[in-house]
């Protein structure tokens, strides 16, 4: 076994031990590096969204300079070629003058589906997506059947090319050259988040839970098999890499509405993934403290949660025996403190969150825009965690 292969195995072992909520050799380190990876290498968002060599180069530089234990695949950068070929109405990478955005921009998919269309979505959501949702979001799919077929053919070609020459190639290089395993092997959304994000919008769903309660519940149940299939199809079984699941609307719901509308399909989807020997990694956007009792209803030691807000010590004490905690290092502290202050904060996090295992060190937010993180302070913090986060 080569040194790189040994390093790869050490990292995989470190993470798989951690998520069993047992103590590995030391606290694993990573963060949600997205378009910031490109900025760090001097590339614009448009560069890394369209040029796969630059995309691969920028993520390799993160692996080399930050020596993280694992890296997310570059899906957060999104494939500019597909969105552009299809004429996306809601995602953009550059402005009308061709100047790249600082991060990928998107507008909310409000009223993509009218309230009257719930029965159609519930009856056959996959058909609804192909026939109604996609043409309303992509101009190239809102044409006569022959033109639509041509656009779908182009998209299919670009999709295969993207996964082979961007995502797959990068994963291979990270493993073989740097010994860095991929953090996620798939992703999905919770049914109610998908309903909000891609069909009804925030305002629509907020009204629907008052006026169309049964249809919201039925739509979540109808979307659940698609969202499960999206997560696991063609993925190898095994607890690591994880399945990435960003959670969006949950913390905007009152706990009672959360219990009624969000939790049933949320819990079922998580249980289905665990039954398939997968580890759901929840990106818990917002403050989840009011919902910790529900988190404790999930299967123990089978789920990872990236916590964005709240008291992390309280999270460790309350849900730390159920899920592995990920994150905790505020990007504001890294950016607005001296190196020494940031390091001191990181040590306190290790003191609070590392005992007993079940903690992956990382920033509390995804890294997108050029000024999202001070790289020198981040390197100092990671170096400290590698030394201070050793289990003895």
């Amino acid at each position, binding site marked *: 076994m080569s040194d790189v292969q040994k390093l790869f195995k050490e990292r995989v072992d470190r993470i798989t031990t951690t998520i069993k909520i047992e103590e590995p050799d030391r606290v694993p380190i990573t963060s949600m590096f997205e378009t910031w990876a490109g900025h760090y290498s001097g590339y614009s968002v448009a560069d890394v969204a369209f040029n796969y060599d630059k995309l691969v180069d920028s993520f390799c530089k993160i692996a080399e300079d930050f020596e993280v234990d694992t890296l997310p695949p570059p899906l957060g950068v999104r494939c500019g070629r597909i969105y552009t070929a299809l004429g996306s109405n809601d995602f953009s990478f550059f402005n009308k003058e061709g100047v790249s955005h600082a991060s990928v921009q998107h507008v909310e998919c409000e009223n993509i589906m009218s309230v009257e269309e719930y029965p159609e979505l519930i009856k*056959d959501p996959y058909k609804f997506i192909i026939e109604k949702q996609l043409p309303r979001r992509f101009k190239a799919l809102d044409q006569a059947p022959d033109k639509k077929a041509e656009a779908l053919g182009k998209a299919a070609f670009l999709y295969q090319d993207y996964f082979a020459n961007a995502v797959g190639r990068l994963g291979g290089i990270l493993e073989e050259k740097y010994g860095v395993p991929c953090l996620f092997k798939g992703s999905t959304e919770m049914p109610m988040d998908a309903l909000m994000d891609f069909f009804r919008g925030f305002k629509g769903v907020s009204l629907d839970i008052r006026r169309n309660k049964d249809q919201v519940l039925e739509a979540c149940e109808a979307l659940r098999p698609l969202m499960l299939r999206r997560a*696991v199809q063609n993925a190898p079984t095994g607890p690591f890499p994880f399945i990435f699941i960003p959670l969006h609307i949950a913390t905007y719901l009152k706990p009672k509405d959360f219990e009624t509308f969000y939790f049933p399909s949320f819990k079922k989807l998580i249980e289905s993934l665990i039954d398939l020997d997968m580890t759901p990694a929840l990106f818990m956007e917002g403050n989840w403290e009011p919902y910790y009792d529900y988190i404790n209803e999930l299967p123990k030691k089978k789920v990872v949660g990236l916590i964005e807000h709240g008291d992390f010590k309280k999270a460790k004490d309350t849900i730390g025996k159920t899920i592995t905690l990920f994150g905790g290092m505020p990007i504001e502290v890294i950016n607005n403190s001296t190196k020494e202050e940031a390091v001191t904060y990181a040590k306190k996090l290790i003191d609070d969150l590392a005992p007993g295992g079940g903690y992956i060190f990382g920033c509390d937010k995804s890294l997108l825009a050029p000024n999202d993180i001070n790289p020198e302070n981040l390197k100092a913090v990671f170096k400290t965690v590698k030394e201070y986060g050793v289990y003895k």
Partner: protein
Amino acid sequence: MIVKLPALESELFDTWEKHIEANPELTNSPVEAKESFEQSRDDFFSMIMLISTF
């Protein structure tokens, strides 16, 4: 082991059985033909889900 799920219940989610019904000359195809058909169907599904719900 790669996860394989049962067919999705949808008018537009193709299955080998529906495909044979439309193309009876393929009834005695080797198993590789069926697997290849299902793989391309699953790849197409993945692309549709990527552009519609990601």
